[in-house]
């Protein structure tokens, strides 16, 4: 099943972990330098192309 564009309402965020870089960064995820995506299939394509793993965050506001 092809995944649809996931609803931004749940603030699903996907980024690609830079191998080795996170160990030296002093700042945390979610700041301006992080390139978050919201389309899961697009993120998978980029991950395949770059060889990087995915970091997927679910945020739900009550």
């Amino acid at each position: 099943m092809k995944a649809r564009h996931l609803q931004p309402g749940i603030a699903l965020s996907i980024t690609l972990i830079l191998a080795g870089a996170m160990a030296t960064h002093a700042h945390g995820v979610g700041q301006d330098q992080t390139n978050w995506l919201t389309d899961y299939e697009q993120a998978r394509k980029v991950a395949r192309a770059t060889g990087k793993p995915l970091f997927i965050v679910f945020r739900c506001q009550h």
Partner: protein
Amino acid sequence: MRGVNLNLFDFDYDLTWAGFFLSANEQMYGRYGGRDASSADGQMSLAGLRHAMAAALATHRRISNIGPASPPTAVQTVEQYPAAQRRQADACIHCHHVYDFRREALQTAAKWRLDELWVYPFPENVGLTLDVDEGDRVKSVADNSPAAAAGLRAGDCLQAVNGVPTASLADVQYGLQRSPAQGIIPITWMRAGKMLASNLDVPSGWRKTDISWRWSLRGLEPSSWVHGDDLTSEEKKKLGLGERQLAFFQGNFLSIPARQAGIRQNDVIIGLDGKKLEMTAQQFQAFVKLNYKLGDHVTYNLLRAGMRLDVSLTLIGRPP
């Protein structure tokens, strides 16, 4: 949660934040997140996230050098539940709705049991307290606990719980979530460079925790029909109540059943059926849901203008 594969992104859906590390081929490397009843983020830290990320990267390097992709995970989405199908097409489906819809489906099939509520048990339930900044590091082991009996000690580094590789609290909870209601949970850990293995022998009821914080609990019946804020320590003292005793004001909004029973705004609820309860107002809501059924007749023990008063009420269902 529309379109999300719940078989892949299988997590505690009452959380407000949950993270996953995985490959492009959906090989799951690890998880991050988790909370307890005391706060939404007390179990998380940036150092802990980095620790989990480092483990995920190490796994990625190791696995991506090995071979082909793992087979795709069978897809299950929240839209497959009848309750989701009744919602308007553009209506938001929140994370906690997964639990709500799943419960309704099980209730409809007469398969739902109260034990379904004890999801994502804490490592403390088996006697382990983990380091927030290194989610696989044992901070302490409770005396006479399954973890103590298995031989775990403070400083040990967990490797896997019930077959789930562990680098974070979320990983440990995922392993415990998939563990039996009673019986054996395999566990491995490193100590002084050696890999050790044993079993956690868990008794019936080990999964129970304080679930009063769970948003998905709100839809479970019966409702208590009384709601409000806890009294402060000072307010309790003035009324001669113990520090830990249940005591909350009935708030501005009075439910119809409460009003009809004669409960008034600012009544102080201090007990139920004469039981001396030591809990917060939030925990009281969970207590009613866990210990009473629809149609039960209960007696609320109140204080009104300093006078003791008992008011009876029937725990009726919410209107459809």
